[in-house]
């Protein structure tokens, strides 16, 4: 037989009196600050980010982010293979926008090789299509996950439906849904499939409706506004000091976009606007991403109209693989094929830094070459890595529940942060 215990439940006034007795002269609670370990596997950390939070009640007094759980040594790997062989590894940086990584990496190597001016117009337009499609895909997930983290689950389901359509398009274009490996040094792995542009236009009409729906669900939603407005604010000066890039920089009011400031590909021939925030809070960063998707759709429509014909690869056998039937019949092409496959393209010695405006921010590649087919040193300047470094400055003073909103608004990917 178990015994029944009497539990004494005090009324509210008695509990308040007990709590007051626990306070010392300064009005502080007795006892130490609490340390809360968030992550590495927490739904709001979008991967494997760990943050050690020191709490005073519900207010954060100290935050120590801990990254590196997904470190695979990409930079070391890059030093031990040819430039072309590294392209699949770039898929796995920001794995929400692999096409954009492919393009940024190819452009960096082409800059070093000195063939960036020779890229064919068709190749450049297709690459812009890739980048903007990747941006829509990444922002759809970023916004969906952000909204879900602060309680609006419906938006996530809406945006994921559209992402699925993007993946179908990407699969048809590249042969793979995630690991696209689409670009090559000096061109692309293949041309657009027949009828693909018509499917893209159809998708753009559909996604427009989805943007409107998602915006209706969030922009004037009082719960979403309460969770995000005036939360996680940092000024333009702080953003620059901490090296923030992408929507996280523009959310604080800095009108800077590499596509406009230092145009690559054919961005200087296309019409688009850079949305900026006014306050630098989580809500502003949400608005910037929302508008960026619309601008990307606008860019894609222009590309569909303006897409020129012609070849997709640079006409230079030193960098681009020759057509297969020529390899089997012509000596020169055979030699080029052999050299490219066994030793890689003949890249001159030197060093370059090239950065592209990726969905998460400025993805830069610093390549130090001693000549030949492999880099001597390849440094990846990952936007998520730098964007996360602000956390220990930004989180203190916020409530625990705000951490989720702040992390969602910073929209990072650990694959890229940890490399």
């Amino acid at each position, binding site marked *: 037989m178990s015994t029944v215990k009497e539990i004494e439940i005090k009324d509210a006034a008695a509990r308040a009196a007990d709590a007051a007795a626990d306070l010392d002269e300064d009005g502080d609670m007795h006892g130490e600050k609490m340390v809360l370990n968030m992550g590495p596997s927490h739904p709001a950390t979008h991967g494997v980010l760990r943050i050690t939070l020191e709490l005073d009640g519900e207010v954060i007094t100290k935050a120590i982010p801990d990254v590196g759980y997904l470190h695979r040594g990409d930079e070391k790997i890059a030093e031990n293979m040819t430039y072309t062989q590294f392209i699949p590894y770039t898929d796995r940086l920001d794995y929400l926008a692999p096409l954009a990584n492919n393009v940024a990496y190819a452009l960096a190597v082409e800059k070093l090789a000195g063939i960036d001016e020779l890229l064919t117009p068709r190749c450049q337009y297709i690459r812009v299509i890739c980048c903007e499609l990747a941006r829509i895909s990444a922002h759809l997930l970023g916004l969906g996950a952000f909204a879900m983290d602060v309680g609006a689950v419906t938006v996530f389901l809406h945006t994921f439906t559209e992402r699925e359509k993007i993946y179908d398009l990407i699969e048809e274009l590249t042969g793979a849904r995630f690991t696209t490996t689409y670009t090559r040094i000096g061109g692309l792995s293949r041309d657009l499939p027949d009828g693909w542009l018509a499917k893209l236009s159809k998708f753009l009409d559909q996604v427009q409706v989805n943007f409107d729906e998602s915006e209706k669900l969030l922009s004037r939603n009082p719960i979403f506004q309460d969770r995000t407005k005036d939360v996680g604010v940092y000024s333009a000066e702080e953003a620059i000091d901490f*090296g923030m890039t992408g929507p996280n920089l523009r959310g604080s009011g800095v009108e800077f976009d590499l596509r406009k400031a230092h145009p690559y590909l054919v961005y200087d021939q296309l019409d688009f606007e850079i949305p900026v925030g006014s306050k630098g809070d989580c809500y502003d960063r949400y608005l910037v991403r929302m508008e960026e998707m619309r601008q990307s759709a606008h860019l894609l429509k222009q590309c569909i109209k303006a897409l020129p014909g012609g070849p997709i690869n640079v006409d230079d056998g030193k960098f681009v693989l020759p057509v297969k039937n020529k390899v089997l019949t012509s000596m020169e092409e055979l030699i080029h094929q052999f050299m490219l496959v066994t030793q890689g393209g003949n890249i001159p010695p030197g060093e370059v830094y090239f950065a592209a405006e990726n969905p998460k921010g400025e993805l830069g590649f610093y390549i130090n070459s001693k000549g030949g087919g492999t880099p001597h040193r390849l*440094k990846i300047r990952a936007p998520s890595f730098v964007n996360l470094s602000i956390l220990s400055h930004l989180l203190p003073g916020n409530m625990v529940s705000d951490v989720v909103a702040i992390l969602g608004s910073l929209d990072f990917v650990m694959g890229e942060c940890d490399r």
Partner: protein
Amino acid sequence: MTSTEKANQLREQFGDLISEPSEFRGEVTIELGDVQRIAEVCAYAKKEQGFDYLVDLSSVDNYGDDPRFTLVYELYGYGHGCHLRLKADLSEEVGEAPTVTGVWRTADWHEREVYDMMGIRFAGHPDLRRILMWEGYPFYPLRKDFPLAGRPTDMPDVAFSDKAPLEGGPFVTSAGAQDAEAGEPRAKQVD
């Protein structure tokens, strides 16, 4: 004002400390004669020349050469849109450079990464710990004498480089256990 003019301005200020600017693929690079003065040069570049954004800080291992390491600073100014690369050599014996965290706060994580991957220390850094590898990891993986396949490293109580036990490991269900509880995938006493 172009990047080259900015570089020449730095040369006027610091004299022989800074090399003749060189240009490759439209990017201007200057080399610093003495790495111990990097913080001073960076502070001047930020304050007087408007390089308010440290894009990237990386390191190169010139294994076999002396000095062995090179630090590479990519500077950018939002106001004028100029990019400038600052390089400084560093020998293995010295192995330490002054921190630039006082100039740009973004340098904090960049320097921790350089320390973690290349083993270069930064004097005056507020919190110089490993960032991508774990605390207590004994090697510097991006050095050229570190093999691509890695080196076996134990992490006491957490990770080990021996073969994982097939029986009784924390992730293995014991198939022939007496009851469901004994078959649970938990760490068990090994006989």
